[in-house]
């Protein structure tokens, strides 16, 4: 284990040569900590992602238990498009393997949307097959917001809604209006979001 001694010696020499031009620094470098709880890599990354959130006023992040940043509720009020002025809520669950695992996001309401099923599952590529640790929380939330501005009939989770959108935008728009007020479309009753 002579390697360690060699590395330590090299470090000392480097530190010594740095010492000469170092300004007075109260921040001494540590011996290892004895404190019990250590901050996990997932928390480090999540704290950074939260701090860097840059969201329009129409998107809000709320913590049911603010001492737990791994779970929160996201609310989106689209400013234009078919879903304008609806209030859509999502649960966001982040696990200890973040950012290897993507955030788990579900819609809390039963809504009429081609890419969201009646159970709240969402078809958005960056939440699953195209997720990568290079993406951050902000990009996922912006991607989700985009689903309300541009619902996509090609990736259907609610097939009926997708068919209507593909065939007739006017009928789709009026169906969305009915559903957002808590009415029924094709015999299915939706949650009021407006």
């Amino acid at each position, binding site marked *: *284990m*002579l*390697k360690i*001694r*060699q*590395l*330590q010696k090299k*470090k*000392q020499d480097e*530190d010594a040569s740095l010492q000469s031009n170092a300004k007075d620094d*109260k*921040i*001494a*470098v*540590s*011996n*290892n*900590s*004895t*404190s019990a*709880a*250590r*901050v*996990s*890599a997932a*928390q*480090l*990354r999540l*704290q*950074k992602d*939260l*701090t*860097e*959130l840059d969201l329009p006023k129409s998107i*809000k*992040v*709320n*913590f049911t238990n*603010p*001492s737990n*940043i791994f779970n929160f509720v996201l609310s989106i009020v689209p400013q234009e498009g078919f879903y304008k002025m609806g209030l859509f809520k999502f649960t966001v669950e982040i696990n*200890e*393997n973040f*950012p*290897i695992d993507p955030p788990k996001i579900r819609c809390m309401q039963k809504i009429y949307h081609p*890419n969201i*099923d009646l*159970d709240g*599952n*969402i*078809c958005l*590529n960056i939440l*699953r*097959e195209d*997720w*990568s*640790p290079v993406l951050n929380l902000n990009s996922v939330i912006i991607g989700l917001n985009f689903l309300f501005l541009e619902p996509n009939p090609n990736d*259907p*989770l609610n*097939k009926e809604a997708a068919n209507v959108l593909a065939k007739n935008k006017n009928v789709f728009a009026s169906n969305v209006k009915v559903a957002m007020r808590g009415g029924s479309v094709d015999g299915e009753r939706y949650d009021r979001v407006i």
Partner: protein
Amino acid sequence: MFSIQNNQHDSSYLSLVSNVGPFNEFIDEYDPNEAFNTLSNARVLVIGAGGLGCEILKDLALTGFKKIDIIDADTIEVSNLNRQFLFRSGDVGRPKAEVAAEFVKRKSMGKNLSIVSHYCRIQDKPQSFYKQFDVVICGLDSVEARRWINATLVSLVDSNLNGLIPMIDGGTEGFRGQSRVILPTVTSCYECTLDMITPKTTYPVCTIANTPRLPEHCVEWASVLEWPRRFPGKKFDPDLSEHLDWMYETAHRRAIHFKIDGVTKELTLGVVKNIIPAIASTNAIIAASCCNEAFKYVTSSNPILNNYMMYSGDYSIFTYTYSHARKPNCPVCGNHPKTIKVPGSWDLRDFIEHIKEKHDISIGTPSLATATKQLYFRSPPSLEEFTRKNLGRKLSELLDDNEEVIVSDPKLPISLRLLVKLE
């Protein structure tokens, strides 16, 4: 002169330490007797007692290591018996670490070999446990466990590189594998290379919901969509046979409906547990490489791997070794915690001003948190509102002495980590 009287067991590798070879890096300091003593006394921790772990344990015992610990939280299942060769059918249900330790000890009588087994999760052991070892070898199949041990070993190193314990990490997938030597805070760490990890294969939700074509789509449909619909709030546990049976039957019905072949119980288990195919021979190659690195490091007889070796045997044979660079903004090794001494009578606002001045965070207020508590978050607004009241509170009320505080700010490329000593 190399003077140790050795028994036959040790003879095979002794010439490697008794002679100073042409590649020895420490010719002036190298002493064969010391090298042999270090080998006999070095404490090695093997993490994982699965396919790789069994190989590693055997190789270590055969190359002269005498003080080995092995840790694993799993018990032996019938499906392990084909490649985890230290286990027999009578061992099914017993802890892997325990059985592996017993087997290797029994096979190497008279060698003063001590193998201590630990049947628990690595997260259940305190830092003090890990501090006792001279080297840690990982034969794990989980990214999460590797990240944890990597962060733990990084946290043990101080600014003079005291407490540095090399982490030798092996991994295999079918005919491919890699071994690497991580010198925490000196070479790139596991977290530095996170972006290289092949993510778990997933399929678009809309495909599994509407247009399944593969047997995997049927299993994913059952686990991602049907399970939460049928059992809201209940966590699926692949180790419970009634859970797995339900999953298999549900996927199977779906497959029949869409005329898809190939949904079996094995496939279902493979998909839900994300089981990566493993073969004994690749495990043997990678385990051997890991143990050779441990041997070279401990005896100082030859230079160690710098720092990443990939082995690819699926199309011809190809190995490639390179030095993976440290990531300057690695959240784990890029910002080693610094100790900062401040009066406990300061309020959080004073503390923040002090840090801003020290670290040139000129605009706005950074976010601060400990492992268990949000001290102040600048965004999102709801957290800012909730944590604002802390700004006027005394540090002595908010923090334990020597507690780690993480400081994040969009201006900082990586979060700062401070160990706060209260005066």
